[in-house]
């Protein structure tokens, strides 16, 4: 069953097409990753899906409930960590969590139990009675997570939940997402960390300039770009970039002291490079071929953004 469904969502901000005809469909139990460069339209899409922003056109459904015609019921089914949103800094960690829980009609015993459990799990037990204003960014984000999952929602929206967090907080967030998913929550997450997406998500959509340009499992996305392999080479002396303009080499990038040459045929490229070194009388320090990672797929897809 489709738990999150967006149909032709569009949003203009003045002349900026922030989101242009985006449709997505996330099935029950999935962890759906939303990847894209800065300004691609990820946050705008999530805001429309969570009822925080009214779309210019298109519709969105959460668990089959339309978010714009039936916002209360739709929102009962979701937990959200907004990108630009935080918990109340004048309340304590526990007050924030308990207050949020009341919105979902949880009784006082289950509110308390669940809050205790989450505070413990998120390492906040000792600071539970401190005003959030005194918290670090990572601790605030953990309170935010607790508020988002206090009611064990069927759907979780997380907009860059790990942005700016240290390794410990990041792991805690990722583990929590996994646990919630294991308990049946469907997750939509945006991140800039491609390895994180690769490791966590069952499906990934890549969005650029307001439009979705690719969707698939991480492995499938990587395979799509299997054709775009590269050769990485380091010479003893600098070599002019123009010399790499050659049939079969599609793109050249400098990576520190190495040159990275994208090609359909690494074998042929290596032979050409060997001949080139011979001809220019420069020594090759190292040479390696590699299959692209998800990061490569991402960079290629969103090139020129």
């Amino acid at each position, binding site marked *: 069953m489709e738990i999150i469904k967006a149909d032709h969502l569009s949003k203009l901000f003045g002349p900026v097409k922030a989101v242009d005809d985006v449709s997505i469909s996330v099935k029950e139990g999935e962890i759906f990753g939303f990847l894209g460069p800065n300004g691609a339209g990820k946050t705008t899409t999530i*805001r429309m899906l*969570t009822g*925080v922003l009214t779309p210019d056109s298109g519709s969105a459904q959460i668990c089959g409930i339309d978010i714009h015609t039936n916002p209360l019921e739709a*929102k009962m089914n979701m937990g959200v960590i907004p990108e630009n949103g935080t918990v109340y800094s004048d309340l304590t960690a526990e007050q924030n969590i308990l207050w949020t829980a*009341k919105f979902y009609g949880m009784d006082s015993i289950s509110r308390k139990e669940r809050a205790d459990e989450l505070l413990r799990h998120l390492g906040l037990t000792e600071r539970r009675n401190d005003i959030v204003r005194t918290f670090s960014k990572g601790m605030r984000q953990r309170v935010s997570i607790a508020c988002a999952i206090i009611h064990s929602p069927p759907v979780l929206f997380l907009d860059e939940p790990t942005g700016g967090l240290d390794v410990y907080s990041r792991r805690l967030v990722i583990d929590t997402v996994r646990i919630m998913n294991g308990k049946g929550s469907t997750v939509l997450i945006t991140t800039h960390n491609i390895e994180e997406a690769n490791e966590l998500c069952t499906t990934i959509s890549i969005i650029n300039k307001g439009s979705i340009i690719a969707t698939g499992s991480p492995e499938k996305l990587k395979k799509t770009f299997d054709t775009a392999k590269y050769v990485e080479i380091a010479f003893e002396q600098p070599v002019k970039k123009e010399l790499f303009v050659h049939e079969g080499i599609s793109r050249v990038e400098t990576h520190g002291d190495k040159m990275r040459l994208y090609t359909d045929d690494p074998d042929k490229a290596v032979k050409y490079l060997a001949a080139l070194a011979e001809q220019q009388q420069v020594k090759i320090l190292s040479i390696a071929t590699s299959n692209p990672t998800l990061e490569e797929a991402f960079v290629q897809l969103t090139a020129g953004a």
Partner: protein
Amino acid sequence: MMDLKIFARSILMVTEKNMRIYYYKGSVVIFGLLFPFIMFLTFFIGRNLDLVLFFPGFLGMMLFFSSSSTGPLITPWEKREKTYERLLSLPVTLESIILGDIMAGALFGVVITTIVWIASSAILHLPLKNAGLLAVTVLLGAFTFAAMGTLLSSPAMSNPSNVMMLSSLVRLPLIFVSGIFIPLSQLGSWEWILTSLSPLTYLVDLFHGALNGDAVYPPWFDGVILVIVILLFIACAKLIQQRNLVKGN
């Protein structure tokens, strides 16, 4: 049915949040009590005004200021602090946020005004003609001006000092055109038109009826006007906030 329950709950939760964060603060309460006292000293002392005659106007001004003082700032504060976005993603609608903001302002106004009325009655031997009407008046007035405060918070401004200015610009002049300093019965026709445009006029008139029994309009008339004004303020606040939801700010 289910929706109605969620809706009612969301209004209460927004009210609770507002009371805790924005009203239940020493500074807000002290200012709420001190401000009318200062106003009282400024306008009444040394002018040889009849205290009993002017007390209904004073109480109206009191309720007006206390119910509408903090409301204009809540949404701008929340937008600046970035808690607004999270609030919107909880099971709320714009209506529940608007009504929750109004409830909190009204509650604060009722509490402050009641304290002031009890204290003043104890000291000044004030008349009370109709206790039931007084209760209704306090409630109606509190909601009217809390709704005004919420309307003032609706334009998209995340800068609270802009809102403060707008709020003062709208609220301060009202006290001079509402029959507080000059009884309605003594106004010329030109002044009368101006006064009848101010909702505060009808609240002050109701207070006159409830306390001194010298109202100019029948109470039902004042009441109906205030109810219409409340609905109008809510509708405008909703319209403006809906537009903000489209513009994304």
